[in-house]
């Protein structure tokens, strides 16, 4: 009688649920996600935090597909998100389209924009691509605050986003909107997470990994490099567009300040700290990067102010700590927190014995 779990087919080896503990974890996770809004029903802050993470997780999953799996560096993910947010808000204001449709329009516009910046990726690699996407970020910033386009984008003052209605039922800009929005944001985040995980374990995902590791070798193996690079850009910017649209509706107003280069670098920090090319890394990185400023504001800044001759605010301490963490992770553990956890797990699994 075999002791342990032995897989006898490829399908079993690639399954999401490989061990009984995965099944238990899945049930607990779903129960936790379902119970969360009811437990914190009256705690707007905790609901806001969950929605915030769910929305940004969608965008982070996108950039992790692009950078972590397909190996294409993007410093313009904030701009992709901005395109999604603005496209959906503008169609909602000017055309009066309903919330699900405008979100879709936002995602598609963002995808088209991403495709435009994906086309040069065939020739541009590494640093050049990073710079090109950085330029895209600044171009979008410039267009959004441009006084000549104020009639469309609202300029630096921004736009007020109409309320989101689902089946005739308003879910934003009403009392308890955080509670209602949870049932849009979190299921969508779960859906996109599972979709991304499925995509990357299929032939598409393997093609991306091959391109990431060596695109010339991948091309010789018969992979259509251009097609898969474009696909990665399209999916990443689609994800960003969905997140941008949701975030615009959730916050209720839209200003260009939300989507600057700082946001793009935050996304890179999320996938680097969490783990490049791991979907759990996207989740852990998003939670870490979005929660850290709150911890700084509530605990660390009050604790250290007065002891150092500097004036620390969230704006100054956040970049210092992020910078330091990015550098530390890259030097000590380039695969992020997920890899760190895996090492801990491996160590504990064999605990009393070294091998």
């Amino acid at each position, binding site marked *: 009688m075999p002791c342990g779990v032995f897989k006898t087919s490829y399908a079993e080896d690639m399954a999401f649920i490989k061990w009984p503990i995965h099944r238990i974890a899945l049930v607990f996770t779903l129960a936790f996600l379902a119970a969360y809004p009811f437990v914190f029903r009256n705690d707007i802050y905790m609901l806001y935090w969950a929605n915030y993470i769910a929305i940004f997780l969608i965008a982070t999953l996108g950039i992790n597909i692009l*950078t972590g799996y397909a*190996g294409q*560096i993007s410093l313009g993910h904030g701009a992709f998100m901005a395109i999604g947010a603005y496209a959906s808000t503008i169609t909602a204001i000017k055309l009066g389209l309903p919330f699900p449709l405008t979100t879709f329009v936002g995602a598609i516009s963002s995808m088209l924009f991403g495709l435009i910046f994906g086309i*040069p990726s065939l*020739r*541009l690699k*590494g*640093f*050049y691509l*990073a*710079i*090109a996407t*950085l*330029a895209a970020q*600044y*171009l979008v910033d*410039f267009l959004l*605050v*441009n*006084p*000549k*386009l104020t009639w469309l984008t609202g300029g630096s003052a921004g736009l007020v986003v109409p309320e989101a209605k689902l089946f005739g039922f308003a879910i934003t800009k009403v009392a308890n909107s955080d509670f209602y929005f949870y049932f849009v944001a979190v299921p969508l985040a779960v859906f996109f997470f599972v979709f991304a995980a499925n995509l990357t374990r299929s032939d598409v995902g393997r093609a991306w990994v091959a391109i990431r590791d*060596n695109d*010339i*070798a991948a091309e*010789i193996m018969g992979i259509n490099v251009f097609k898969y690079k474009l696909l990665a850009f399209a999916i990443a910017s689609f994800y960003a567009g969905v997140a941008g649209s949701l975030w615009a509706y959730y916050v209720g107003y839209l200003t260009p300040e939300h989507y600057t280069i700082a946001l793009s*670098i935050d996304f*890179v920090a999320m996938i*680097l700290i969490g783990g*490049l090319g791991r979907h759990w890394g996207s989740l852990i990185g998003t939670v870490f990067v979005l929660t850290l400023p709150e911890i700084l504001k509530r605990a660390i800044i009050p604790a250290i102010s007065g002891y150092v001759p*500097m*004036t*620390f*605010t969230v*704006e*100054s*301490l*956040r*970049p*210092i*700590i*992020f*910078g*330091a*963490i*990015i*550098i530390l992770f*890259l*030097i000590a553990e*380039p695969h992020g927190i997920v890899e760190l956890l895996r090492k801990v797990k491996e160590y504990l699994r064999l605990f009393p014995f070294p091998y």
Partner: protein
Amino acid sequence: MLLQSLINGVTMGGIYALIALGFVLIYKASKVLNFAQGELVMVGGFICLALSEFLPLWASIVLAVILSALLGFLIEKAVLKPLIGEPILSVIMVTLGLAYMMRGLVLAIWGPDIRAFPQLFPPGAFNIYGIVIPYVYLGGLLLSIAAIAIFILFFTRTTMGVAMRAVADDQSAAMSLGVSVEKVFAISWAISAMVAAVGGILVGNIYGGINVNFAFIGLKVFAVVILGGLDSIPGAIVGGIVIGVAEALGGTYLEPYVGGGFKDVFPLLLMLVIMAIKPYGLFGTERIERV
């Protein structure tokens, strides 16, 4: 009007060329693409500003340049050295992390407000046939030319400079001939931070005041090195002038039609066009990839 913008453009271009030389130097020596070059410029400017509060200006400039060199040296030893041989994404991200840290530190120490920069040159301007050239511009141009000349002399005349060129040419051959590659990497960072500080002081003089957004100048440096080629010193000089002039002309002639801030975006647009036509720049070496 045209001549005026040309002169402003050439002056700024000279300074961009100087800062871009630092970028090219690091890339040539160690193949690291430094996203923190703009932040090094900013930090150099702020060190000079802080020192000038209790030192005479000339002393604070000299000290700021020396301290910047030390900073560059320490950055290489602490951060870049452990990452030798890592993939390009890691190296790019680590310099972004550095940029982030420097930005935060400057914000924490000096705050977000614009600080007046001590003036190195007397106020006033030349007036030649109606073209006004402020002394600051003239001084900035002359000093940046002098700095570039010193830079080039260092590379052609000194042992260290020749050793650095050898490393840029062929790392393992240089190593086998007894050149310490580690030392060359560290020194290239030190020199790069030094020229960044000189650039920061000159731009600080021209702008009249600096704040944390000063690091924006790094973007123009990217445009310069993409135009000239990542590993070409003449390319950096030509690219610097072209980008400086393009920026000034774009600011004068195109900004009224397309809206404010176009001056800063125009070099980036130009850069995207160059990337599409000539990805390795005007003077860059074309890289042949092998599996």
